């Protein structure tokens, strides 16, 4: 990395457009939301009244075991889907980057890109029709002893639905990283006697740390804020945080409560993201 070179002077200026966009389109609106979350909601109104008093009630009513349960469930299923997604995407991306001829690679990338244009709503309904309780898989599942209407299967299906979105995204992200890893390092390790799997574990994976982190963060953040997938595949019984928020943005119109939940989710998730990035950053420093 260049150290103490005049090139560094340009870089703060490059941050300006990003800072402007984030400030104007995200942080300032979020501040407005933060303010709304402290307003009192009178049932029957639409959101808080113009001069509603400030209150902590929207936050204090979240201090219930059931709300914590929803949180944990969202985190649990998201984590499961993200890690599984990485587990699937890495070999896939590796195979794409190293083992395929350029022609086939273009086809495979084309496939993944096309997949990203399949509407989330349609593909989730498609999964429900094939793997759900009324699908052709039903007799097989019942035969194996899995009750397709049971909660365990539904949670699995939600994770599967998330995976379907995560794997293409993670694969393409990891493709970019793997292509920048010198394959000769792997060859060298093998020449020195390491078996393939060990060489990957100690050479390839650490060098892809940045890309793995990016892929994980994409997957995790997508999953915890997922709305359509848990709504359809969760059958209204497996609820993610965004489904709870959606309840408050309907005719019930309790926007302060919805805002409060969003702020809590934001704070918790941001902390997780920061801690994860930091840990990995520390781990990958020489």
């Amino acid at each position, binding site marked *: 990395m260049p150290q103490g070179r005049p090139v560094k002077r340009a870089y703060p200026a490059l941050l300006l457009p990003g800072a402007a966009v984030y400030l104007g389109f995200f942080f300032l609106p979020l501040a407005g939301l933060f303010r709304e979350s402290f307003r009192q*909601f*009178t*049932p*029957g*109104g*639409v*959101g808080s009244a113009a001069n509603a008093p400030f209150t902590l009630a929207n936050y204090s*009513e979240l201090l*219930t075991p*059931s*709300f914590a*349960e*929803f949180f944990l469930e969202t985190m649990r299923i998201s984590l499961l889907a993200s890690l599984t997604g990485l587990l699937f995407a890495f070999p896939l991306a590796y195979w794409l980057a190293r083992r395929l001829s350029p022609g086939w690679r273009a086809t495979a990338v084309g496939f993944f890109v096309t997949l990203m244009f399949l509407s989330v709503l349609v593909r989730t*309904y498609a999964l*429900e*029709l094939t793997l*759900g*309780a*009324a699908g052709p898989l039903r007799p097989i599942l019942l035969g194996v002893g899995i009750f397709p*209407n049971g*909660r365990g299967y539904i949670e699995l299906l939600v994770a599967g639905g998330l995976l379907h979105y995560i794997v293409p995204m993670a694969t393409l992200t990891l493709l970019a990283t793997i292509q920048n890893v010198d394959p000769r390092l792997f060859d060298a390790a093998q020449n020195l006697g390491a078996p393939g799997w060990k060489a990957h574990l100690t050479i390839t994976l650490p060098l892809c740390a940045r890309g793995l982190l990016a892929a994980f963060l994409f997957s995790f953040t997508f999953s915890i804020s997922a709305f359509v997938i848990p*709504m*359809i595949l969760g*059958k*209204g*019984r497996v*609820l993610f945080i965004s*489904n*709870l928020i*959606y*309840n*408050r*943005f*309907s*005719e*019930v*119109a*309790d*926007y302060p*409560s919805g805002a409060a939940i969003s702020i809590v989710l934001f704070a918790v998730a941001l902390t997780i993201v920061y801690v994860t990035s930091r840990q990995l950053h520390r781990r990958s420093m020489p």
Partner: protein
Amino acid sequence: MTQLTRRHTLKGAAAIGAVTIIGDTLGSTRRAAAATEITAVEWGGDVVNAMKQIEAKQNQVKVNWVLHQGGSGAILPKIKASWPHPEYDYVSGWEGSFNGMVKEDWLVPVSVETVPNLADIPQKIIVKNAKGEWAAVPRAIGGIYCAYRKDTSPVEVKSLDDLFDTRLKGKICWPGPTQAMMLPLVALALHAGGNEHNMDPGWALMKKLAQSGNIGRIGVTDTDFSTSLTSGETSVGFYSEPQLTAVAKSFPVVRLTKQAGMPTFLYQSGFAILKNRPNLTATLAFVNHCISPEMSSLYAQVAGEAPLNVKAKTPEALKHLSFTPEEMNKYVYFPDFNEVLSQQDAWTKRWESEIAPLL
């Protein structure tokens, strides 16, 4: 007829193309100069089809149709954000959405003077604002009741107790906390000896239902419900008219609107006219046109909600919604909507903490 040479056709096509592109870029297509243009928010599907046909039968007003995007609650934050300059002349809704708009004082009061056809609408059903004035114009009624698919349901449901039948494991689609004004919960309360003011018996029964494992899906949106039934995932439900009609179009559905022990609820669908808009007179005239006897019948025919105008004809397909006075007393329950609607927030939160974990 002008010559249909290739040159003429191409020239015509190019001209039409140019106008369409220009019109699109300007964000609105050209309107006839004579008619006033109003902007209305309607539901998609059959409802907007019905309304377009109704629009075609008059020429004072041209309507820019905006569709409800995912439930009638989605329009509310937009009105609130742009208040006091709303973008819409009227918003179609039902008790569930009228309540909020009335409390926020967004609506123009109506009366028989401004909307003459209101004289033929039963007054009891008209939503009133805080001052007792009529706040919305009802056009049709639908029902919220229990129904099941005759071809796939293992049980012929005759009372709410049948919902606990073990043969119905995973076969019930029950509406979620923001749907159908949570009236099915009120139905359970009534069955257990309570009512909308005393809901504890209803919650107890709901917990039992949740624990029984009979609920296959909790419907979170309108389409959720009908898709669940048409795909065969569930067979029994307690939901509202448009969804049950949609299912009934393709499958034999038994509608328990006149079943002893099974309460039926009626809701209205109608027009909420917003304040601070430039074309109030035109809007009122259009709304009046929509609730005339002929237009009410047309709406019932196409949109599938029973007409409210006493002079209109109820089509055959909606006979389950027409009640004689005795039937009305026996089968239909009129809750205190004020209570029901002001409790929606509390009931939603109670559902999330007590019922959702049991499902």
